């Protein structure tokens, strides 16, 4: 009997190919993974923003490339009463509309948080103003505010007989301003109401029961349980709402185009008016750039003043 030696075999790990090694190399991986996101951000966010800021410091017009003029555009705007009127109206529009949206939105959310018949149907109906395209609802409001065909005027004058003359919604400064704010509030309520409703539903019912046993009246339960517990989501929703309202364009441009006599121009509509319609691209850019500090301020304010609460922060034991 012969003993045959087993063929000698040593286990060799297969060497990974150059491609596998490349994909194991961390710096390469980082670049590959980040590239799509960074690319998209650069092309669609950074470049337009950068271009806008750059244009603000030049004297570009449509069809004529500009040169660097420093702060000249801003210096001109400082002297421009129309610009200041737009700044004022932007702030006023945002402030009044936000207060209106939150007062009515919170009220609606509180109503919907109760057990109502046809709850989901009502919720769906409430979302309607938000899902209708803005321009469409702007046209609807344009008709509602029309000097001759306004349904509101018709109801007050022809049906109820409470007034002699038709309302002049858009013909003079302040009525026009408030009419636009009303349209904006109408459009903004659903977003606020649905977000706050989501916030309300995170509050445990047993907290209200505990408060009830502790002797809290409905108003006290609202001010001492609901409001503080809703504050974090309120802050976020308010930040978004302020940004959307401050940068609003469609409603105003579709209903009044900034008129009468430029009194309802927001900064966004004025920027478009001057930059595109008026061909002063650089000046429009300068107006748009002037919006940035307001937005940064609004964001920081709600972030620091409203959103951060000690009781929300982690489990830290001091």
């Amino acid at each position, binding site marked *: 009997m012969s003993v045959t030696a087993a063929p000698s075999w040593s286990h060799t790990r297969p060497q990974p190919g150059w491609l596998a090694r490349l994909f194991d190399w961390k710096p390469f991986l980082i670049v590959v993974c980040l590239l799509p996101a960074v690319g998209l951000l650069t092309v669609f966010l950074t470049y337009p923003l950068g271009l806008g800021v750059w244009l603000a410091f030049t004297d570009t017009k449509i069809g004529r490339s500009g040169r660097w003029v420093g702060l000249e555009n801003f210096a001109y705007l400082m002297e421009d009463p129309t610009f200041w009127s737009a700044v004022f109206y932007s702030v006023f529009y945002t402030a009044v509309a936000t207060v209106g949206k939150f007062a009515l939105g919170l009220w609606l959310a509180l109503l919907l948080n109760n057990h109502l018949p046809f709850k989901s149907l009502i919720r769906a109906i409430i979302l309607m103003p938000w899902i209708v395209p803005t321009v469409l609802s702007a046209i609807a409001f344009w008709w509602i505010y029309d000097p001759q065909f306004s349904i509101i005027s018709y109801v007050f004058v022809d049906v109820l007989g409470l007034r002699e003359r038709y309302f002049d919604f858009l013909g003079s400064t302040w009525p026009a301003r408030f009419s636009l704010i009303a349209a904006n509030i109408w459009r903004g309520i659903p977003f606020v109401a649905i977000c706050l409703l989501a916030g309300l539903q995170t509050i*445990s019912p047993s907290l209200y029961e505990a408060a009830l046993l502790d002797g809290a009246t409905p108003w006290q339960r609202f001010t001492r349980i609901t409001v503080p517990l809703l504050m974090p989501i309120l802050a976020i929703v308010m930040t978004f709402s302020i940004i959307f309202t401050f940068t609003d364009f469609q409603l105003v441009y579709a209903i009044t185009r900034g008129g009468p006599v430029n009194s309802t121009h927001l900064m966004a509509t004025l920027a478009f008016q001057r930059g595109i319609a008026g061909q002063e691209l650089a000046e429009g850019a300068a107006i748009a750039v002037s919006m940035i500090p307001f937005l940064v301020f609004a964001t920081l304010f709600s972030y620091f003043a409203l959103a951060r609460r000690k*009781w929300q922060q982690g489990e830290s034991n001091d």
Partner: protein
Amino acid sequence: MASVSIRNVRKSFGSTEVLHGVSVEIADGEFVVLVGPSGCGKSTLLRMIAGLENITSGEIAIGGRVVNNVPPKDRDIAMVFQNYALYPHMTVRDNMAFSLSLAKAPKQVIEAEVGRAARILGLEGLLHRYPRQLSGGQRQRVAMGRAIVRNPQVFLFDEPLSNLDAKLRVQMRAEIRELQMRLNTTTVYVTHDQIEAMTMADKIVVMNSGHVEQIGPPLELYDRPANLFVAGFIGSPAMNMIEGRVEDGAFRSADGTAWPLPPANGQGGAAPAGPIIYGVRPEHVRLAPGEGIPATVQVVEPTGSETQVLLRVGGASLVGAFRERIAARPGEVLPVLPDPALVHLFDRETGRRL
């Protein structure tokens, strides 16, 4: 402090009746535990005492005053919720002071009352913390502190220990009991855990699907369960129930094995001939070499302090809990005998104790 009377109380949600006429008398300073499986209506009853659910029919009186239409805050009760329901945005101090500050009590009074409750519960060092920064046991204590501050006539507890781990639960059980004895406040405590009920209560109310099955002190429920439900619910491991009939002065299970009857009934006196259910607690089964019933070992579960053995006698299975350590293997045959004095007999039709 006050007594609580629950008289023929019913509760319906829509067309479903969940409490079918419950009556319980709770004496001043008594610790009463409502116990039963989930869905038996015990929490609903507690919430009706608190005023969080309205009473469909019947009457609830606290301290002699019918409270059916009294709002919760005027019932002079305090409740500890299962999830504690601490206000997350308030410190421990503010949580405990909330009811007093709503009542516009003077600052010194609030300070004094919160201080007193904090001392009782050992919460002095935690007053400035938020609920998030507390452990489960600490939150539990704050919830009790909030109840104590109100100095109520009745404490209501809704499964307060079910969110705690096993060890802490045992500790808090003793703490709540000790606290109740010190404050001597009438207490209604809801739990699904019969051990909690047995260890804490002066009086246990066993509930099952909207009915009261039995009311009594813990040991009475253990020694003389009124029916099969109570017999099976109280005690762990659960009582063995063997079906069979009484024939010729002995109980015979389905396979013909003869089991000893209690002495009074041994002569065929009280135990009527016919089908009955024979109940014996695992701890009342003993080893009886020579005279015992041969039982086949299926599973042996040593717990250290005792050994639980799952046995098979004919077609019936029997659990025995023995103080001695038994090194039996599955398949072995052990001679076992129930203690005849501690055997319970139940009517098979009605489930009532015979």
